């Protein structure tokens, strides 16, 4: 399965309702922000642009090239979309892509669509754009290198988050799913990176005006850098922790006191569905994972707010 094109599109039934709803909430907030941001700063012209770009991501997924051993690169496109269109438009584009993949092709479920959008659209945009933004005024070579790394990391992070969601939902064992998903995506991520870099190089060569920092600067500079770097760091730190010592994650969560603080309350709010089959320890893991998601969300909301303030002042 992990080699099939659906490797990151979680179907319905594989995530618990809590996890599905948490990520739906996060996704709705981010997409809502993205809509108001694009409406405000980029204008009506963006709608056909985003629609056609979403179709482009689909079409680009057809372009694979033979890698060793019969696998072929399968293109996610989240990082590329965010780098070229800016993060907010990138998020909307990927939301449309994941929605159509789920609706039309049953490639990913409906109830879990929030999680799929978050993994493949929002996380990849934050990492892809955030890291790219750190070097967006540097020389071409450095920019391309960094965008390649960002594309690779975005793929890895999406795979990691998907595994964590599966684990928290009680679908997979942490020590199995994380190494398996990450192992496979090391390769897939390389394909992603190559296509992203080559496509950017092509655009740079033919329409450099599309990559000028003027557009990217208007969509918020520093906050995206911070978000991108922080999220990347979290991903980089969690991966070895989760794959090398699966208990590590839970210990970290306990050390930070999330478990004690969260347990009792959650027990009363959500008495029914996780408990009958997951028990206390599993519930606590829900929190360990959710905390990550919330940190991310909080960061992004703060970011959105600071952006809004900025754009309001710049209007005068």
């Amino acid at each position, binding site marked *: 399965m992990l080699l099939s094109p659906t490797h990151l599109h979680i179907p319905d039934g594989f995530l618990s309702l809590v996890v599905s709803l948490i990520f739906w909430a996060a996704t709705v907030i981010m997409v809502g922000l993205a809509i108001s941001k694009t409406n405000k700063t980029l204008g009506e012209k963006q709608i056909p642009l985003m629609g056609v770009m979403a179709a482009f991501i689909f079409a680009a997924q057809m372009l694979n090239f033979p890698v060793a051993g019969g696998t072929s690169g399968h293109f996610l496109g989240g990082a590329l979309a965010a780098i070229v269109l800016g993060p907010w438009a990138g998020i909307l584009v990927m939301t449309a892509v994941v929605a159509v993949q789920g609706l039309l092709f049953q490639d990913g479920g409906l109830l879990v669509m929030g999680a799929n959008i978050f993994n493949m659209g929002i996380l990849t945009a934050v990492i892809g754009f955030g890291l790219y933004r750190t070097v967006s005024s540097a020389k071409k070579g450095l920019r391309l290198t960094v965008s390649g790394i960002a594309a690779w990391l975005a793929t890895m992070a999406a795979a990691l988050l998907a595994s964590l969601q599966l684990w928290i939902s009680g679908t997979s064992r942490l020590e199995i799913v994380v190494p398996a998903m990450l192992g496979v995506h090391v390769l897939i991520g390389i394909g992603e990176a190559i296509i992203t870099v080559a496509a950017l*190089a*092509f655009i740079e*060569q*033919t329409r450099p005006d599309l990559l000028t920092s003027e557009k990217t600067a208007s969509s918020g500079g520093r906050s995206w850098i911070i978000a991108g770097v922080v999220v990347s760091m979290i991903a980089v730190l969690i991966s070895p922790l989760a794959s090398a010592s699966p208990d590590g994650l839970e210990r970290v969560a306990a050390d930070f006191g999330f478990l004690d603080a969260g347990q009792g309350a959650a027990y009363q709010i959500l008495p029914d569905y996780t408990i009958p089959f997951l028990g206390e320890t599993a519930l606590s893991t829900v929190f360990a994972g959710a905390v990550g998601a919330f940190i991310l969300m909080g960061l992004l909301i703060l970011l959105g707010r600071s952006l809004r303030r900025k754009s309001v002042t710049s209007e005068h």
Partner: protein
Amino acid sequence: MPVKHKTTYPLTLPDCEGDILQIHELNFAYPDGHIALRDVSLNLCSGDKVALVGPNGAGKSTLMLHINGILRGEGDVAVSGLPISDENLPVIRALVGVVFQNPDDQLFSPTVFDDVAFGPLHMGLPENEIHQRVDEALAAVQMQGFGERLSHHLSMGQKKRIAIATVLSMQPQILVLDEPSAGLDPRARRALIHLLRDLPQTMLISTHDLRMVQELFPRMVIMDEGHIVADGKATELLTDAALLETHGLEI
């Protein structure tokens, strides 16, 4: 103007059994069940210049895609005596150069040089030969010095020429061109006709431009609804008003 070059060009058909391309009772249906080719048989001899005409949807492009094995129907297709099969495919693609109707379908590399060099590079030729072939191909279409230009920023007529160069650089024995003159302005169309007249290769060219056929092609094949409905001297077929009328053609 249109008759100017007639005398310089032999309007007789070569007399052979089809030594370079043999298609025998080819049938093809697209995956959705649409039957696009029905019992198509066609032979080409070295040096033949053949026009393939017929209304939209007749099956011209489908037939052309069979000649280098992009599509595979039921029936026999052989190029230079080699039947189309998986192991022959690379060689056949070196023998047959296909230029698609829209140059944007043909050009996928950033620079003109990259695009013209793709075929030779893929064939594993040594570097100096690649450079030489690219130069020659660009010279043949009068586009010397365009190597470093971006294909994307050329005019339509220039793109068409480069598209032809991308297959010339592979030095194929057969040129298969799908509606090369569509969308060109009259001057560019004229230049294309000159170019095609001067190239020595065997050619199969689909077109809606019957006046170009009149001027350039000794032999003409009419397709309609997947069938070949006529195959003969262009001069004769083009005067058969009833035939043209039946198949929605007009000159």
